[in-house]
C-alpha cells in the first residue's frame, strides 16, 4: 500500500528535535576543526605534526558537509518540499534526495515516538492503522493525529 507522505504532527516535533541534535553535532565538529587549524598555525611545529592537524581539520569539515545534508533531510521530514529545501539550502535536489539518510526519509508520514536506541532518537510507532485516505495513530498517549484538524475523520469530505 502506498505510504502517506504528508508529515504527521510527530514528524514536525521530531524534525525540530533532530535539527537541534545535528546542529549540536556540527558545533562539536566545528570546534574540533577550529582547534586543529589553530594548532596547525603554530610556526614552531614540524611538517608531520602540521599535516596531522590539517588532516583532522579537513576530516571535520567533510563531516560537517555530510551533516548539513542530514540537516536538510530533517527539514524535509518536518514537511519541507525537497525542491523548496534544495533552493533554500543550496544543495541540489538530486544530491539532497540521493544522499539524505534513508532512515529519515522513511520516517515521514509515520507516527513517531521517541526511543533513545533508535537512530536520531525517534522511531515509527509501528501501530498505525490506516483508512483509505487517513492515517490514524494507534499509540496509547494523546495524539493530534486522531483528535482534530483537517486530518480528522469527522471532517472527512465524504461525510
Amino acid at each position, binding site marked *: 500500500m502506498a505510504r502517506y507522505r504528508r508529515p504527521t504532527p510527530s514528524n514536525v516535533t521530531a524534525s525540530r528535535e533532530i535539527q537541534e541534535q545535528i546542529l549540536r553535532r556540527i558545533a562539536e565538529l566545528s570546534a574540533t576543526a577550529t582547534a586543529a587549524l589553530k594548532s596547525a598555525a603554530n610556526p614552531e611545529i614540524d611538517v608531520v605534526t602540521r599535516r596531522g592537524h590539517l588532516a583532522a581539520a*579537513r576530516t571535520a569539515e567533510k563531516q560537517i558537509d555530510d551533516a548539513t545534508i542530514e540537516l536538510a533531510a530533517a527539514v524535509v521530514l518536518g514537511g519541507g518540499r525537497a525542491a523548496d529545501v534544495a533552493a533554500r*539550502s543550496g544543495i541540489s535536489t538530486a544530491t539532497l534526495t540521493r544522499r539524505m539518510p534513508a532512515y529519515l526519509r522513511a520516517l515521514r508520514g509515520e507516527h513517531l515516538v521517541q526511543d533513545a536506541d533508535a537512530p536520531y532518537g525517534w522511531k515509527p510507532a509501528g501501530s498505525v492503522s490506516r483508512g483509505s485516505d487517513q492515517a490514524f495513530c494507534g499509540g496509547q498517549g494523546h495524539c493530534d493525529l486522531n483528535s482534530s484538524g483537517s486530518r480528522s475523520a469527522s471532517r472527512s469530505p465524504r461525510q
Partner: protein
Amino acid sequence: MAFRRVTPEAAAKEAALAAGQAEVMAEWHAGVASDLLKLAEAHANANATLAAVAKWRADQEKRRQRWCSAALMLIGSGDDPDAVCAGLGLGRTALQQAVRTGGPVLSSFADLLYMPRPKRKKEAA
C-alpha cells in the same frame, strides 16, 4: 615522483607560509560556520537552518582551492606528497591539475611540478 624535492631553505620558508595559511583558514572556517553555531545555541526555525546551510556550502570551489594550497604548502615545506594527499583527501593528479588550472594563487606552486622538457630537434651529424 609526482612532485619535485625541495631544498631545506625553501622548505623552511614555505613552512612559515603554511602556518599563516592555517591561521587564515581558521578565520574563514569561523566565518562560514558562524550561523550554524548560533543556531546550535538557540534553534530558530527551518528557514534559518537552511540559510545557515546555504552559507556553509557557498563557494565550495574556493574552499577546495584553499585546501589545495594548504596541501601544496605542506609539500613545499618538505612533507611526503603521498602522505599529504592521503591525509587531506585530495588526489595527487587532482592537485597537479589544480596547480595548472587553478588561477594565480595555485599556479605560484608550479615550480613543485615536473614540467615536460621542450622538444629538441635532432642535431644533424
